[in-house]
Structure formats: C-alpha cells, structure tokens
C-alpha cells in the first residue's frame, strides 16, 4: 500500500474481522420496506398531471404484408386522444416482435386506450410464418433476415469454426469412452416483474424531457434519444427486474417520446404482458450435438461440437467449447439459425446455461459409461482448485457420499427414485469506470450518490453501506441516491459489472471523504491523516483512543458541505469467480413427475459486501435455473405464427410449490480483498445439475428442455 507524504493511503477493504456493516448476514435492503409496502414508485406507477396512456396495436402473427391499418373508428371513441398507424400499406412485417407493431393509440385513461386499440382495423396478408427451427432450416424456406448487400441465401449466419473437425472426430471414435448426444433448448423469457416501458414528460420552455424508464443504463439511456428537445433527464428510482433485457430505449420508447412531444403531454407507455412476451427479448434457444471422447481413466481427450443458436432475428448466444472442462483436442462449429421471431437479448449469463447443458450432459454421460463417480470425473477434468473445493462441498451438503447411485444410475422401473446431479459455473465479472459523490453535511447528514440502477440486486444498499463502514456509521445514517442520470455517471448493468464498477468507486469516495475529514481533525485531535479509527459513530486517534470526537462533532467542524468524488479503483476489484451446484430430485418413473428436492450452490466472491443479498442472488440463480429446467418454454403455433405463450398462464414459471430446499453457500476460503458482481454465475449450471440428477435417479437422459412429463416420459418410453 503506497502512503503519500501526508499520511493518506490508497483505500483497501480491510480485514474482514474488522467490518461492522459489510460482509454481514443481517444487512437488510434499505429499500425493502418501500418495496414491500408499495411505497416504492416504479416506472409503471408514475402519474403526471395531464398524462395520457398509450398502447401498442400489434399484428398477432409472425410475417405478413400490410394491406390497411384503419384508425378512424378508434379516433372517434370517447377519451381517445391519439390513434395513428405506424406501418403503411405495402410494408412487410418481417417478424413477430417490434416489427408487429402497426399502430399507436392513446387515451385519457388506460381503458380508453384499450378501447382504441381494439377499434383499430388491421388487414395484413399473411406470409409463411418461419417461427420454428425446422421451418427455418427447410429447403426453400423464406429468408427471414434481409440485407441489401450480399443478401443471405438461407436462414443461417455467423458460422464460426474452430479446430480440426476430422482429427477430432477420429480421436472421439478411437476413445475408450464416447458420447454422442444432441440437446435441444427452447427459448426462455426474462419475465421481468415490471414490463419494458417509459413515462415521458416532454421537454418544453427550455426544460429538458424527463424519461422515467425501466432501464439497465440510467447514465447513457439518453444517448439513444434524439436530443432535439434537449438532453433528457433519466429517472429510475426503482426497477422491477431486467436480467439483461433492458438496454434499449426500444420502439416503445421512441413512440412514447415522439407522442409526448407531439401532444405536449406526458405519455405513459408500458408494454402489456403479451407485448412483453412478443417484443421484450429472450434467451436464445439452442440445438447442439456433442461428440465427446475420454480415455479409460476418464480424462477427456476430444470434443466435437456442432451448435445452432436460435435467437430469432438476433444472433443468439453460445459460450463456446469446451465449456469449463479441459479437453485436449477440440473442434466446434457454431452458427445462428434465424426465425421470424423477436431477437434474443442479453439474459443473465448469455449463452452460458445453454453451453453448460450440452457440456455437462456429455461429461456426465462419459462418467457413467466408464462406471466412474461423475463427481470425480468432473474434478479430474477441471483445473481450478476452487472448482474442486466447491464441488466437494456441494457434494457433501447434498448427501452424495451416502447416495447409493454413485457410479451407476437407478432404473425407470415404474418406481419413485431419488437422484443427484452436478454442474459447474464460472464468470468474469467486469469493471468499468464510474463515479460516486459523497457529501457530508455540517449537521451530520451523509449522502452517497451515483447514477446507477438497482435491478433488484441490492446496489442501493451497498451505495450507503460502504460509506457507513468507512465512516464508522450505521447504514441508516447514510442516504443513498441512485437512478438519476444527473448524478455522477455509472455503468450499464450488464456482464455482472455493476458491483465491480460501483462499489470500488463508492469505497474510493468514502475514503476521500474520510481523509478530508481527518485533515479537518488534524488541528483538533492533533494526529495526521491516516491515523484515525472510525467506529461506532466516533472517530478516535488510533494510537490514543482517548482523543476522540462523536460524528456530529466532527461534522460541526465543517463550515459548508464537504463533497468528494470517487472513481472506480481497479485495486478494489477482482474479475474471476467460479461456482458449483448440486441438485437432488425425485422422479416418479410411472408418471414422469420430477420434483426437485434440494439444490445447493456454492460461489466464491472475494469480499461479500452483503451476505444476505449475496445468498438471495445465489438462491435467485438456482430458482431461475430450476424454472428453466422444469417449465419454461416459448411456444409458437407453427401453422399460422401465433405466439401462444404470451401470458403467465401459458408461459409457466416456477411458483412456491416448485421450490426445493435451497442452500446457498458463500465460499469463505476465497480471501481476496476485492469485490465483484456475481449475478450471472449462479444461474448457469442448475438445469444441468437437475438433468444429471434425473439420469442418476432412473437412467433416463433428458436431452430436451424443459423436463416436463412429455419429455421425461419420452426419454423413458420413446415417442408415442
């Protein structure tokens, strides 16, 4: 640690045993009461004087040619203030998604807007839907993604090939153990509790527009907006989830923005749940064929991966091969297969759960083929000691050592059987530069401010907690201000970068505030900067604790508010985490019912800023993976191109009765004195562990997600 000449030092997080606010199990979210009582105002809840309610009108099928969009009847309805086509006759609707929007209506009430939407007459001549992978792959299929230059000849794009496929296939064929498995993963939705959308206050009389936005990028959302009306203010005091889907102003934002300025009135335009499923993004589906070989001792020797990414109009995501495991000889061929459906967006570890499911399925298959313990085979092919430690611990916690099926699965004999499976994770959470202001008032008030958004992760809480820790205060003595682009700039919340970016900047600002206060204390307590201890609402001279002042007495030394600006310090951040998970399931091989009994996840983290929030994140990852494993599936009608799973009735996510015993273990052997985000890692391996547990229970290999009775019974009996 470099000491400067006046005794100031670079900030460090400090020994964990000395922490009073951070790394604790009982640090509650500071916005918890607001959220649970309904006081928290989300974008959906914003009500402004003179506000109108806007609604999108969509063509309900996938592709077509617009014949007519007639809004006259809608315009004549009571309470309707706007009804206009946004697509013209002759235009092509290329895909189910934002391209389906044909008109925009607005009313004095949400009901008037609904009435207007229903009254819009939409005539579209349907084109072949191309909504399934089979339809997109078919010879002569319409090409859904058009490009002026070098128009594509089919629905594939972006082929990436690595390695020497012939060599690898030969190596697989000659290996002592070989697996050849094809997995299919449907498209998953983010299912944010709060749908996408904005409330737009138009700019006028020199005042800039105000965007109340459910967004993951408060600081830079304004860059996506035409600034003819001035640089917009962006406000996101609370948001109801994003999971990667909220990085774009979107068509809904653009239409709301234009309408607000056209009408000179605030516009509320939040997507309906059906709109959200249609155009709010998704996690791309996947088709993968893996051929994996291993020697007789279980060392993986060769892997060939063919993969299609099913991202609709988007490219889709796949994390590549080999996934986490060491394999000597690898070849892969990964490409996008496009359908006329909404483009995939980032979703909590994009491409990783898909890659995990393929790889963990193949690795598991090798273990049983060799009659080896799948846990031991995993460790044999993972180089990181952290993975080894974590696998051992989750195995212990799930009861693997006492489990009868350690080297051979149970049987699908009509009985009810219990199985255990594993999977591993990893992530490189990033860190980018952002800024934080800490202000100390002469009356003792402290404000920690940065533009960042809290997606539900607990960011707001650490924005206050880190400052409280540094200044020896209680968290209730520090006010966190976030979700406003006029505050010091922060980063878009993607790639688990938020904590690795914001928390070091908060720490730095708090540290600068402390040093500035210590400079004020020098003439009073007669000790140089860097020689004070801040604890329990008091500051004392470290070498002579009798010389001390209470917090308010310190602040009273200020003639005016003290404000410092901190910046992200790389020394306070680290960028590599691991993870391991185990699942225990019960399979009724007569009915195909799968019950997940228990899941265990372990994550390394560096310094846990907030252990309760960290466990919640890990639990959330397990829950989202369980829901992906057991239930979630976007469904299109292949005949006419209707999105059938456009409600929470028809797109099933797990509920309370699906919840197993969840054990989230923080890896405290990770002693790094640095922080990082970790939201993505714990969602990666859960569905893989569950599939492997089903196999372990009954010998049925689930290669098609989700593990609903149709797929489970087909794995047991074959297709009927």
């Amino acid at each position, binding site marked *: 640690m470099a000491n400067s000449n006046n005794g100031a030092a670079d900030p460090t997080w400090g020994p964990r045993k000395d922490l009073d606010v951070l790394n604790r199990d009982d640090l509650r979210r500071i916005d918890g009461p607001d959220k649970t009582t309904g006081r928290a105002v989300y974008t959906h809840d914003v009500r402004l004087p003179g506000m109108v309610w806007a609604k999108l009108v969509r063509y309900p099928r996938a592709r077509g040619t617009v014949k007519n969009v007639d809004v006259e009847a809608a315009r004549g309805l009571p309470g309707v203030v706007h009804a206009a086509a946004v697509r013209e006759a002759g235009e092509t609707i290329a895909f189910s998604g934002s391209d389906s929007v044909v008109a925009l209506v607005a009313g004095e009430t949400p009901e008037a807007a609904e009435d207007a939407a229903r009254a819009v007459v939409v005539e579209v001549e349907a084109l072949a839907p191309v909504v399934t992978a089979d339809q997109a792959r078919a010879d002569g299929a319409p090409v859904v993604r058009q490009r002026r230059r070098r128009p594509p000849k089919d629905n594939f794009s972006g082929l990436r090939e690595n390695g020497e496929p012939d060599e690898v296939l030969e190596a697989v064929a000659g290996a002592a153990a070989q697996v050849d498995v094809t997995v299919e993963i449907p498209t998953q939705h983010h299912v944010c509790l709060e749908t996408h959308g904005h409330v737009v206050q138009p700019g006028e009389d020199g005042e800039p527009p105000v965007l109340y936005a459910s967004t993951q990028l408060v600081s830079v959302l304004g860059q996506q907006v035409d600034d003819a009306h001035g640089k917009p203010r962006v406000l996101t005091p609370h948001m109801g989830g994003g999971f990667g889907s909220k990085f774009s102003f979107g068509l809904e934002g653009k239409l709301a923005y234009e309408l607000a300025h056209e009408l000179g009135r605030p516009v509320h335009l939040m997507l309906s749940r059906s709109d959200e499923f249609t155009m709010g993004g998704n996690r791309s589906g996947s088709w993968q064929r893996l051929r994996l070989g291993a020697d007789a001792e279980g060392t993986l020797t060769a892997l060939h991966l063919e993969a299609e990414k099913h991202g609709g109009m988007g490219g889709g995501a796949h994390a590549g091969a080999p996934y986490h495991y060491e394999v000597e000889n690898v070849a892969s061929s990964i490409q996008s297969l496009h359908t006329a459906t909404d483009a995939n967006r980032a979703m909590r570890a994009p491409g990783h759960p898909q890659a995990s499911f393929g790889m963990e399925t193949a690795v598991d298959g090798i273990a049983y083929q060799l009659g080896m313990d799948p846990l031991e085979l995993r460790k044999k092919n993972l180089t990181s000691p952290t993975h080894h430690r974590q696998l051992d611990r989750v195995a212990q916690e799930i009861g693997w050592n006492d489990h009868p099926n350690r080297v051979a699965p149970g049987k699908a004999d009509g009985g009810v059987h219990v199985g255990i499976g594993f999977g591993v994770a990893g992530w490189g959470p990033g860190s980018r530069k952002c800024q934080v202001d800490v202000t100390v008032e002469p009356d003792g008030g402290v404000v920690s401010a940065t533009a960042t958004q809290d997606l539900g992760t607990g960011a707001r809480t650490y924005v206050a907690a880190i400052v409280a820790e540094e200044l020896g205060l209680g968290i209730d003595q520090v006010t966190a201000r976030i979700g406003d682009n006029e505050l010091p700039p922060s980063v878009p919340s993607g790639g688990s970068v938020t904590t690795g970016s914001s928390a070091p900047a908060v720490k730095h600002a708090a540290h600068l505030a402390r040093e500035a206060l210590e400079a004020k204390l020098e003439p009073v307590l007669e000790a140089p900067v860097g020689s004070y201890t801040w604890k329990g609402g008091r500051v004392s001279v470290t070498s002579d604790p009798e010389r001390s002042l209470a917090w308010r007495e310190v602040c009273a030394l200020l003639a005016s508010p003290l404000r410092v600006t901190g910046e992200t310090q790389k020394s306070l951040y680290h960028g590599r985490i691991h993870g391991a998970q185990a699942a225990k399931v019960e399979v009724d091989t007569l*009915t195909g019912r799968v019950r997940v009994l228990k899941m265990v996840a372990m994550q390394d983290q560096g310094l846990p800023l907030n252990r309760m929030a960290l466990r919640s994140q890990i639990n959330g990852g397990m829950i989202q993976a369980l829901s992906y494993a057991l239930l979630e599936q976007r469904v299109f009608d292949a005949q*006419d191109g209707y999105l059938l799973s456009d409600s929470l009735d028809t797109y*099933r996510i797990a509920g309370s009765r699906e919840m197993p015993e969840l054990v989230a273990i923080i890896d405290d052997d990770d002693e790094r004195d640095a922080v990082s985000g970790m939201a993505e890692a714990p969602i990666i391996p859960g569905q893989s562990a569950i599939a492997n547990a089903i196999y372990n229970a009954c010998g049925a290999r689930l290669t098609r997600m989700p593990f609903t009775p149709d797929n489970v019974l087909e794995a*047991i009996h074959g297709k009927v």
Partner: protein
Amino acid sequence: MQPFDLQVPRSLEDALALLPKERSYDGAQLIAGGQDILTVMKNDIAAPTALVELDGLVPGEIEDDGTGGLVLGATATIQEIADSGLVRERFPSLAEAAKSIASPQIRSRATVGGNLHQRPRCPYFRHSGVSCFKKGGNVCLAEFGFNKYAAILGGGPSYFSHPSDMATALIGVGASVEIAGADGATRTVALDEYYVLPDEALDRETVLGANEAVTRIVVPAPAAGVRTTYLKFKERESYDFALAAASVSVVLDGGKVASAKVVLGGVATKPWPSPEAEAALVGQEMGPDAWRAAGEAAVADAVPLDMNGYKLHLVKGVLFRALESLV
C-alpha cells in the same frame, strides 16, 4: 375487455330474465366469483354487454342432506369446499380436487358452480387473435398444431381438454346439478350426462340453456365402505390445470374389488368416465396387476395427436398411483 353493465337483480328469476335465450358473443352472462368469465372477457372470447350478479341469489352453503349426502350451493367457494369438515369426512376426493385448483387467491373467489362451467383453456381458444371452432370459426388449430395439452379422448372436431377438476371429482361421487330456468322451472341433471362433446355442440360444453343457472349440486350418500381419491397431475404444482387427473372410488370385498368408479380429467373434451377401467378392476385382486389393466383399458380407445402421446403413459401412471393410494 369491453365495457359492460353490471346488473344486480333482486331475485334469481329476475336474473335469469336478463339473460338471452340463445348464446352469443355479446349476450348478457352470469357472474359469481368471476374467475373464468373475466378472463374470457379479457381474452376477447366474449364481450357481454351486461354481467348479471348471482351473488346472494343462489345458495352458497355446504349442507348435510340428512341421509349421508351433501348439498353444495353453487356459489360455495372452492376454498370453502376444500376446508369443509363435512366434505372432507364424507367425500375426501371432493376436498382433494378443490385443494388442487389454481391458487389460494383464486380458490377464495372461485365458486364450485363457476368451476363446472369454465370455458376451455386451450391456448388457441384463449388467444384473442385466433379463430377456432369453439369461437364460431371453422378450424381447430390444435389438431395439427400445438397440442401438448389437448385431449386424447373425445376429440373432434375440437381437441381442447376439459379444465374442470370439480366436475371430474363430482361425477366420481355420482353428483347431480339442480338447474333453475327463466320461467321458474327447475330440473335436475346427473353430472355424467351434463357435459357434451364437441361433435354434439361447439358453442357450449354443457346441456345448460343460455338462460338457465345451476343452483345446487347434490351429492348422494357414499356407499358403505367406499374408498375415494382424486389425484391430479399438474405440470406446475403451484398453479395449473390437470395434464391428467383421476377420480377413483372402490369398494373392496376382502382383497378384491367389489365395485369401482373411475373418471378421468384433463385428457378428454369432457370429464371422462371410464367404464372400461372399472370393468378391468371389478372382481380382480386390488393390486398392481389390476391397476395396470385398468390403465390399459382406460386408454384403449385414446387417439393421441402429435404432441400428446405422453398422456397415454401419464393417464396409466396417474390411475395406478390413485388406486395405489386407496390400499
């Protein structure tokens, strides 16, 4: 949902007089708990110009009929049925069926009468953009489209699977419904004759007239020594309709099945009594061989579509597990 008038008549007779004689997209309809009709309206399957409030006009009590049976007022809530000591003691399968339905919030509002009259839950039927036989159209997109949840029995020309758990369980215990008509007339129909197949009628699922209402459900006293259960298999345990369900009653004579009643839910276009499964059980030892035979018999006439062949295995499994629980 389109605007509508809420009518609050003073008597059942006044209420029924407000209903049209023929069903239509915009004709007045009854509302009790509202858990189906409001979703139907939100999905634009119907747009009644008026909803007629039934609350207070139709009994909602659960009463002892004095002979060992029960009378359920049609506006008794599903939660009341699940919680009723009388129901649990005499007809555990009815309590189990009630408990399996939807979510606590919905159970506390939904009525048993409403449960018997739910419209199909097929995703095509519920999609406001889709035309289908059941909505006056000329196609069943489920037949060759997404039919994972569709019927394997009683299908054609429409293939939805009937959603009512209470209907399946009530038929299993021999219940009838009392129906009030607009002219003050009443009639009683056995529930196993109450539902109609799509090849009999497409605009409705029951024999109920457009201006009639079910007022009571009469459940006769159970046979001496009968054992009854309702087993429902849901894709999502927290809240779902049946992928397959079985209401099963047996009377045992020694180790043998003296009589049996089997009604299947979630697999047919109406609640599906299975005399075939019953015949396979009666006279047999109460054990796995008979349970398997009953399952085979239950699906012998089933015609699966492309995505719902798994229901053949599922029905057999559910029936097996239901019978097993009665030992």
